[in-house]
């Protein structure tokens, strides 16, 4: 009798273990959490869907793009990198070629908008500042200064070469290189508070552009053939060109992509339009909300969008929210 009950006990234990394993087959997932607004929303939404829909144990890893790429290429962690702005990541191309990382989708489907911006109140007063030629002709109206990206960002070389090509350096505009992205953002905020002129490089969708409406300066079409030279500091022949749409991608580590099919397909489907992201960021600003609450706002407002990202099992689990 002892042997029979032990046998039945073993069968039960095995059955329970198997069912638990199947329920939690997602396992542990680590996801990068950038400190800027749109990245926080993306990570919060992804984390919620993975935990509630797929039963994963998700760890968020606060990182910025370049250290994240270094980490994933050397150690394979974190598994998921969100919102890699490829224009600002010199290491990205080489890593994709080596196969260590796999880009799965454009998480900002319209791409990021990058370029030279001036505040709206300035353009309203002086409409000619909406084009680069207008600024070259009236440098004192924009404060005789261009706020450039910090050392180490790719946009530094591009912007400097475009300033040279457009004749703005000759017109007397001071190419001021900021020490960090924080001071660049703070200079926009400070100029807006004091209604002072401002002219420099920025990108969207970001909370800064959501809070302080700016106009993109017209610089003509993007010319891919001159862009490669413009991206290097030693370019002898900088040429005028508009900024391209910036590719913003979700990247998975090679091993994770092979091991976890369900989450890989979730991350391949997960993508926001610029309008959705800007509206969510604007909602966060207006309501003094945290980015987690912004993610909740996105999930409750755009139900038809994210339902399609999930597989059937996850959609069943979250059916209460999709009504």
């Amino acid at each position, binding site marked *: 009798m002892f042997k029979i009950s032990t046998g039945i006990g073993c069968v039960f234990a095995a059955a329970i273990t198997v069912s638990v394993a199947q329920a939690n087959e997602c396992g542990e997932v680590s996801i990068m959490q950038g400190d800027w607004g749109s990245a926080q929303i993306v990570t919060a939404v992804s984390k919620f869907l993975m935990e509630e829909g797929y039963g994963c144990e998700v760890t968020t890893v606060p990182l910025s793009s370049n250290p994240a790429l270094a980490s994933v290429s050397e150690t394979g962690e974190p598994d998921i990198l969100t919102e890699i702005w490829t224009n600002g990541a010199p290491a990205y191309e080489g890593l994709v070629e080596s196969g260590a990382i796999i880009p799965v989708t454009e998480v900002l489907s319209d791409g990021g908008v990058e370029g030279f911006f001036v505040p709206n109140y300035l353009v309203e007063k002086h409409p000619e500042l909406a084009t680069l030629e207008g600024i070259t002709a009236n440098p004192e109206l924009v404060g005789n200064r261009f706020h450039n990206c910090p050392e*180490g960002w790719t946009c530094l070389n591009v912007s400097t070469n475009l300033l040279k090509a457009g004749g703005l350096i000759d017109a007397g505009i001071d190419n*001021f290189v900021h020490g960090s992205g924080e001071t660049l953002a*703070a200079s926009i905020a400070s100029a807006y508070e004091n209604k002072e002129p401002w002219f420099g490089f920025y990108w969207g969708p970001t909370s800064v552009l959501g809070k302080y409406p700016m106009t993109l300066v017209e610089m003509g079409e993007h010319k891919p053939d001159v862009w490669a030279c413009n991206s290097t500091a030693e370019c002898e022949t900088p040429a005028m060109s508009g900024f391209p749409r910036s590719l913003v991608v979700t990247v998975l580590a090679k091993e994770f992509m092979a091991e976890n099919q369900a989450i890989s397909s979730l991350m391949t489907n997960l993508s926001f339009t610029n309008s959705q992201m800007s509206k969510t960021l604007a909602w966060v600003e207006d309501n003094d909300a945290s980015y*987690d609450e912004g993610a909740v706002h996105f999930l409750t407002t755009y139900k038809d969008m994210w339902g399609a990202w999930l597989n059937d099992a996850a959609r069943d689990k*979250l059916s209460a929210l999709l009504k």
Partner: protein
Amino acid sequence: MAFYNKLFSALGLGDWCGTSDDNAPLSLADLAAQAGGEKASGPFFPIPSFDNLHESCNRIWQSRDVTNGIEEGFLAAKPVLKIVLDPITQPLSWMLDSALWLFEVMPWFIMVPLLVAISWYASRSRPVTIFVAVAIMLLALVDHYDVAMQTLSIIFVCTTISVLFGVPIGIAMSKSDRLQKSVVPLLDLLQTLPTFVYLIPLIFLFSVTESKLYGIAIILYAIVPVIRLTDLGIRLVDRDVIEAANAFGMNGRQKLLRVQLPLALPNIMAGINQTIMMSLAMVVIASLVSAPGLGVNVLRGIRNLELGVGIVAGIGIVLLAVILDRVSKAALARVDKTQVKH
């Protein structure tokens, strides 16, 4: 939040509190509970924080209202602060810009001998002087001469101002216990408050293009050791010596200049030495707010994942620190009257 609901109704504050706000942003935990079909249940006895109390009583602020209030207060005070602080800090901008211009305009064959001569005059020690010459030429060899000179000029100006203001403050502190008690918490604040916390608001006051921004950052951090150690040095002067000075009929000023300061000089020099070290420690943070120099190379190395660039620039900062440390220590040994051999 049933716990606090009961509390407020028991206190009779139900009407004052108002009805709960249905448009308040949901949290992720609430959403997860919704997905599971149940209402979110928090802990039985939540801590009495603003956010938790707000859920039961709408009139109580949320914590985000506190942070917003601070921001609005600062923006409201900004015009007044600007009028007061701008003239006071403008000389700092001029000094930094002039020093940077001077160090860059002087050709290396004048600058390097000048620096070596200064270190000989201050230290009168051959090993130190040779080390200074070798270190500077080493930096020049790897094309880091320009950035090293920029950093050196910034450190020079900031240390001079720190000492100029720090020693008198330290002397005043040593004379008055009350002043010491009120200044010490301020010094603790300056050393531990994260620099960006007060730098970003300062960008709203001054423009980030002005050099006084990083000058203020470095000075506020580096002035603390010289103040503390001057105060300590003067307080540590032997009571018997002070009594002897009193017996000789010295007045306060004579005591300070002839007795206390000379005897406190080892501590004061240690304070100056530490001020120099802390200024160099701030080099990278200063570069985050657009200071030129070796910090820019460090940041570029970090951002581009060029490890070598970062390491070489970092070693450059260390070399500068060691040069300044050895020269100031050798100068200290010369003026240290407490070690005079009879």
